[in-house]
């Protein structure tokens, strides 16, 4: 054993451990190098041993190891081992065909293991497709993928993070309420008027909810849009498929990623209520006489007696301006030959913008905390067998005030109920709190103010005096997969078997109460004392009740995969798969819904590529649905696709420098949809239940339940069929600086599963029977483009995508209407219909000279409608299609990123257009009559006798809902188009040189704003919520700072 000329003891240690007995000490003298200003001494050659692996931990035999600048080199053996001599400071270069070269400077260690990364050209990159992966070159289905880095914002729901990010995905977030803010997602708009319009969502190949995945544990998100991509899913695929893959382990030294982010949030688009004095003025106007004297209005305005003349802005009293949010994630990823792992932990904490009650221990504000955990491990059992074990889960804790539930038959969320009470109250109904006595120190004791009338509640009492609810949601997902390389049977053949088990449960604990309320009666004219009487006697203690719900799913898959290049030019691939699924809803509303939901099917794919120029693919799904009778249960769903990689043709060679890739592709196929309306099942069975109801008899009114047909079964039901066509191209130019992808699609959906619409009620059936009736067409384009340019010290990236989808009902079970133009058939699904508002009636003369409006007596200032059919009267027969439907026809997103010297800034906009929403409810001033219901500040913008403006937002005020003015019309519809500045992010990546001393590989500091601004013609609330009255919790704006580090 020799001693090194070194102060460092560690190499000795290593030598001892590796058991190397002889190390040549002879200096070559060939290598004298200056590195980082240190003088490299002439070193003796040492023997270096190691192993070369690929990223999956598989050894690479035959890889070259070369000492850079010399002729010394070796080749790895069959197990990937090498032994080479080099001296400290020399550089080893590892190379292997199809992999990126890697260089490593020899240090004091004599054991160097290397993991080579595959050299994936743009065409060879692996793309996630239905039930497998494919080389990018051979993908000829319509698939969009989002760059996961682009969606790493502070958004709870992964669905919402996708909004505007992918061509073909229509994402609409209707509410910002914590825990209930998951948006709706549709692929390429909608193609059916049946109940099921949502895509199939698969996480790691299993049907799962994706909203509570942490974006930091996600590797990729893709959507499958055309039949070629989705046919393998058969009867579930008609509405498209969303594929989410979680991050897997890679063979590398452990890399630790840490993200911490914290910031404030507010609600920029909360509607604004009118103040009490103006409210009283408008009350008088709508009432037609002076109910509030100018003196009373003055007192309301000046606030001199807030108990007798209250003036309360209920939103100000229930909402605070700022709240906060925190996100932290910690991931470790690494592995080697035996096992590879990804382990992640995530934590997020969001608070709502509701006020807290200072008098209670518990908070009345909403709060959500979510813990994510994931451990994806793959273990190489043998050289050809890999076992994947994926376990992921999340725990969501939601704390809300003790409201939310059923009010007069309508179900409200927590925030929804608070909106309900705020909308029902008026600014002058009652003070928030009233003094009800004195304590021993002569300070006022306050009680909640009681509303003036039955049915109303003090919104602040409901927020702060209602107790609280806590909810736990546990989501657990697991999957175990066995991957077997069947090289021994046939080269290129693989087998995969997976079993997954998922469980979900939700526990909701309600600690609720009602608090006492007090009514102000007046003031004693002599003493001036407030006279108060108790109105409702509240509970002293919080009550207790709870709700549970749960579900679980088991899924089994067995898959054979084949991929082989035959000769030089023929690449053939195949996939054959069997799966079944068993899902149980543990909280089903009926016995029939509690039965396991089962699905079963096989899928197959055959691909062929000639010389990477011509591609063909055949996909097949054959699967069944329990909803249809035996014999009609299984369906065959084939799809074909073809592609031409023009840029690989010899004649294209000259152009190839400019246009690097040009691919033209097309597909045609049939997919299905099995879901029955209203989530019903077994459509072929008649279901007997309570029937129309029961009855009571006798002096003691004993009630007897009934029995009857709840549903009449239909024997000849079958699945809905969607014939999808797609044609598109992919273009990559200027060395990848410009990319463009565009597709035209069209789909014809037929045999749509509906409840019969033309059966008159005299048939007397308890519910309209199911049928396969109707046809609908949907077509449009989606496109993605990206421009990137790198400079020496920075770069720029501009990107965008657009989706345009327009559907049309070709036929449906619609009874003929008296005027053909009133038929909904022939229009977009959900197309708004209504009258055309011409303006407001100017005077009695105008009314007399206009066609008679048959909805009730009209006066000047009421809405004047167009007599479409010219019959001299305005009735429902004059309705025409107005506006659009409530699902946007155009969805787009675009953004830009610039970086320079480590600094970067990025913005992202998204928008929707060609969408309309109907107005109603609280939007209509005094819709329940004067004295009930709040008004928005916009109510001031109305037609009055003194100021008869035609451009006023509202017609003449009316006591109640004026039947004439609130017919469905262009006046009761708003344009939901908007452009949102969705994300702004400014960051700085600390230079690696500065980090080397603190053992940090990379460090990023950033500030971002999420939902920063919105631009829309509609100003009263966020149009994306799509409400008719602004009664959805607005989308939060978050302004955060964060740090992201890799160790």
């Amino acid at each position, binding site marked *: 054993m020799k001693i090194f000329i070194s102060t460092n003891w560690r190499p000795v240690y290593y030598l001892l451990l590796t058991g190397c007995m002889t190390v040549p000490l002879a200096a070559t003298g060939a290598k004298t190098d200056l590195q980082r200003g240190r003088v490299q001494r002439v070193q003796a050659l040492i023997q270096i041993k190691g192993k070369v692996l690929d990223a999956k931990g598989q050894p690479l035999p035959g890889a070259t190891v070369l000492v850079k600048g010399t002729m010394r080199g070796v080749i790895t053996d069959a197990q990937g081992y090498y032994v080479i001599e080099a001296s400290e400071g020399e550089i080893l270069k590892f190379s292997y065909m199809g992999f990126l070269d890697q260089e490593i400077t020899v240090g004091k260690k004599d054991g160097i293991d290397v993991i080579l990364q595959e050299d994936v050209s743009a065409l060879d990159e692996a793309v996630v497709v239905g039930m497998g992966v494919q080389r990018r070159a051979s993908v000829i289905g319509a698939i969009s993928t989002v760059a996961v880095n682009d969606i790493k914002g502070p958004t709870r729901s992964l669905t919402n993070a996708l909004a505007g990010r992918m061509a073909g995905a229509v994402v609409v977030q209707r509410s910002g309420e914590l825990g209930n803010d998951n948006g709706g997602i549709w692929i390429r708009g909608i193609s059916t008027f049946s109940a099921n319009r949502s895509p199939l969502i698969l996480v790691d190949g299993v049907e799962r909810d994706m909203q509570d995945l942490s974006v930091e544990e996600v590797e990729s998100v893709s959507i499958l849009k055309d039949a070629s991509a989705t046919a393998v899913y058969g009867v579930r695929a008609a509405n498209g498929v969303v594929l989410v893959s979680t991050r897997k382990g890679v063979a590398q030294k452990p890399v630790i990623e840490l993200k911490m982010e914290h910031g404030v949030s507010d609600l920029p688009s909360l509607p604004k209520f009118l103040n009490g004095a103006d409210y009283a003025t408008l009350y008088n106007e709508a009432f037609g006489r002076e109910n509030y004297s100018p003196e009373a209005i003055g007192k309301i305005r000046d606030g001199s007696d807030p108990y007798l003349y209250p003036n309360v802005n209920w939103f100000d009293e229930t909402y605070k301006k700022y709240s906060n949010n925190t996100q932290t994630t910690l991931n470790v990823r690494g592995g080697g030959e035996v096992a590879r792992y990804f382990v992640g932990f995530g934590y997020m904490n969001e608070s709502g913008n509701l006020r807290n009650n200072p008098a209670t221990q518990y908070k009345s504000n909403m709060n959500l905390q979510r813990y994510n955990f994931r451990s994806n491990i793959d273990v190489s059992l043998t050289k050809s067998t890999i076992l994947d074990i994926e376990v992921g889960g999340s725990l969501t804790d939601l704390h809300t005030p003790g409201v939310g539930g059923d009010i007069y038959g309508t179900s409200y969320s927590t925030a929804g109920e608070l909106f309900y009470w705020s909308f029902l109250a008026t600014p002058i109904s009652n003070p928030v709190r009233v003094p009800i006595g004195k304590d021993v120190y002569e300070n006022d004791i306050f009680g909640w103010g009681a509303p003036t009338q039955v049915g109303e509640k003090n919104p602040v009492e409901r927020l702060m005096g209602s107790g609280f609810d806590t909810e736990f949601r546990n989501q657990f997902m697991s999957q175990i997969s066995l991957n077997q390389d*069947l090289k021994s049977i046939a080269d290129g053949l693989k087998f995969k078997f997976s079993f997954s088990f998922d469980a979900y449960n939700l526990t909701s604990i309600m600690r609720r109460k009602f608090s006492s309320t007090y009514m102000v009666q007046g003031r004693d004219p002599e003493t001036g004392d407030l*006279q108060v009487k108790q109105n409702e006697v509240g509970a002293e203690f919080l009550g207790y009740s709870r709700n549970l719900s749960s579900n679980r799913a088991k899924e089994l898959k067995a898959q054979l995969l084949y991929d082989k290049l035959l000769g030089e030019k023929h690449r053939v691939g195949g996939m054959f798969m069997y799966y079944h699924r068993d899902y149980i809803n543990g909280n089903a509303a009926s*016995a029939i819904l509690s039965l396991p939901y089962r699905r*079963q099917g096989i899928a197959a794919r055959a691909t062929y590529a000639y010389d990477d120029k011509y591609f063909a693919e055949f996909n097949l799904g054959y699967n069944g649905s329990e909803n249809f009778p035996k014999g009609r249960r299984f369906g065959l769903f084939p799809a074909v696709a073809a592609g031409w990689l023009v840029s690989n043709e010899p004649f294209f060679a000259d152009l190839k420098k400019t246009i690097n890739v040009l691919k033209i592709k097309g597909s045609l196929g049939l997919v299905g949809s099995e879901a029955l309306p209203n989530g019903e099942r077994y459509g072929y069975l008649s279901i007997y239940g309570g029937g129309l109801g029961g*009855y009571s008899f006798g*002096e003691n*009114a004993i009630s007897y339940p009934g029995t009857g047909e709840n549903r009449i079964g239909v024997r000849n039901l079958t699945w809905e069929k969607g014939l999808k066509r797609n044609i598109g191209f992919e273009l990559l130019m200027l060395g990848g600086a410009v990319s463009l992808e565009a597709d035209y699609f069209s789909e014809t959906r037929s045999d749509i599963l509906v409840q019969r619409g033309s059966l*008159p009620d005299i048939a007397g*059936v308890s519910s309209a029977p199911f049928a396969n009736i109707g046809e609908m067409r949907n077509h449009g384009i989606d496109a993605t483009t990206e421009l990137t340019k790198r400079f020496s010290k920075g770069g720029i990236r501009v990107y965008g995508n657009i989706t345009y989808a327009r559907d049309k009902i070709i036929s449906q079970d619609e009874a003929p209407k008296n005027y053909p133009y009133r038929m909904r058939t022939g229009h977009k699904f959900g197309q708004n219909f209504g009258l055309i508002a011409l303006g407001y009636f100017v005077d009695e003369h105008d009314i007399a000279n206009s066609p008679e409006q048959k909805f009730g007596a009209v006066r000047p200032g009421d809405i004047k409608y167009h007599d479409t059919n010219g019959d001299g009267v305005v009735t429902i027969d004059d309705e025409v299609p107005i506006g659009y439907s409530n699902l946007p026809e155009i969805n787009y997103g675009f953004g830009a990123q610039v970086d320079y010297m480590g600094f970067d800034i990025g913005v992202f906009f998204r928008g929707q257009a060609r969408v309309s929403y109907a107005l109603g409810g609280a939007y209509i001033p005094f819709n329940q*009559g004067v004295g009930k219901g709040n008004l928005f500040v916009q109510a001031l913008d109305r037609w009055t006798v003194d100021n008869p403006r035609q451009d006023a937002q509202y017609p003449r005020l009316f006591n109640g809902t004026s039947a004439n003015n609130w017919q469905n019309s262009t006046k009761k519809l708003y344009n939901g188009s908007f452009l949102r500045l969705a994300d702004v992010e400014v960051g700085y990546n600390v230079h690696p040189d500065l980090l080397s001393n603190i053992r940090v590989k990379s460090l990023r500091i950033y500030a971002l704003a999420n939902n920063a601004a919105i631009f829309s013609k509609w100003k009263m609330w966020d149009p994306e919520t799509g409400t008719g009255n602004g009664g959805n919790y607005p989308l939060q704006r978050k302004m955060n700072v964060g740090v992201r580090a890799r160790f």
Partner: protein
Amino acid sequence: MRKILFAGLISSTLIMTGCEFLEKQPDDMKTDAMIWSSRVETEKYLYNVYSQMPMPLLHNDAPWLGLSDEVDLTWNVYPTYNINLGNWNPSTGYYNLWTPYYKAIRASFVFENNVDKCGELSSDLKKQYKAEAKFLRGFYYLQILKQYGPAVLIREELPISADWNNFPRAPFDECVEYIAQMMDEAEADLPLHWQNDRQWLGKPNKVVCRAVKAEAFLFAASPQWNGNADYAGFKNRDGKALASTTYDENKWKRSAEASYAVIQIAENNPAANIRLYKNNENGDGATFSPYKSVRDVTLKRWNCEIIYGRAGFDQNAWEVHTSPGTYNLGGVAPTQRVIDAFLMKNGKGIYEEGSGYVEEGFAAQGGSNWNPRSLDLAADRVRMIEDIRSGEAWGHWPGDWNMYANREPRFYAFVLYNKRPIPQLPPDIAKRDYFSTGNTVVKQQNGYGRVELYYGGFSRGSGASTFYPRTGYLVLKNTDPQSNMRDRVYVNIGRHFTYIRYANVLLNYIEALNEYDPGNANIEKYWNMIRERAGVPGVFVSNPEIRGNKELQREYIIKERQIELCFEGDRYYTTRRRWVAHTPDTGTAEDYKRKYGDGGRFWGMDINAGEAGTNSFEYTGFYKRVAFETRVFDRKMCLFPIPQSEVDKNFEMVQNPGW
């Protein structure tokens, strides 16, 4: 291992082809065969046929009060508000009872066609149950007929695949014949009464079948359907007339005889226990009290006057809506027309000579029963209130407005007028004072809880409250005085809801009899029965001048109906079938004297007069007749429009005239 896996893949594929994986029939579900083999299930199917029997809980679900000329429902979120303003059409879909009745009719056929399969039922019960199904079908058709006019007459169970888009309506008289046929067939297999088996009260019996048939005949005889020239164009697409345009007096005769048949059963079968309700004959005191009798006929469960009703009426909603605000919803408001229709205690109408009616001023003295025990109002407050609630003390108090003085008992039993102590509150001072203004200007908190319906009064309010009667009156009928409407504690839960009581039959009878035999002695006999129970002199005592005069007698019979059956849903149909609902506004200041007309101005007290801060019971400006609403009524509105969607879906079915 590989081979095992491979074999597994292949075999799992094979399993699927012969698969049972999806074949998991919900075998524990009820099936057709299970229902008709089990007695319990078969009976439950019958209750399902019963389930659509009308139950107008608070007349939000049914329009018969809010659209009639006797009531205003104050809530403008109720469809009645818009309908009264003329804001409705076939597409508005208000009060669509068409749909549920046809569902029940279909169920009645299914039941009849299958009940024989049930081996667990005796043949007697099968017969009885079939009779019940027939009765229900006839009853449902009658409801359709009344609300919508000629029905689409479905006489059998039809398959789903039937040509539903080509079912024309059947002429009115044909529908009536079918109903009569159902009633006759049902009657044959039903018992005379359920008095010995009171657990089945609410099932039809022979008397009910006859009474329903009589009601159907009454409609057929009435001017709306008997020779109505306005319906000359009311025809199916093929020209078949749906209403008769030639008057046939025999229809009245048929109707009278049908009603008389019910009366004869009542009179000849004491076991059937059918007679007008009187307190002293029903265990409530030894002396006859007209006030208690008329009040309790709707409150006392299944009393002797109830010919047909349904069990399990949930009156809570009704009591909340009729009891004064603001703690309650207080807004079922009698119109001035019905207030003025109530007789004086001498049996005369208020505007008739010698009635003793005084419009203005406060009464110096109370009525004869206002304080029967001569209690000290201050010292014996609790006993006084208990007397009011029990019905011992009734009638106007000294200091009440003269308009409400010396009226007949039915007035006090059915109407809560301004300043009257609220019966449905306990004698607890705080609870009663809750409904009284107590500031130093208007010190009305004296422990009596007198209802304040004037502007600024507690149950009227002046500001944001909307829960007050727009006419200045509240309905008291059918509200139990023993309820506690401060704490919402209800008594007498689950009582019956009346469809037909003996008074209906008597009134139907004398109305029909008068049309062809106005001199018949039975008119006086049965009319006086009602008057006697109501505690007013016989009609020919108070108004001898009308005797034998068909037109005048008709007026007075309809008015008797208006009073006796007020707030029970009868008035809506009476004004329509008598074809007087479209009587227009007179245009004069005295239009409030108009007896009929569902359109035009509607009158009440001036609930907006005076100053909120200083108004009190002393304030007389309240007692001024003002129009609170101008209703829009057109004769097409005598029938509901058939829902537009139904007309669209069934080409052969014509819409009602004018819609």
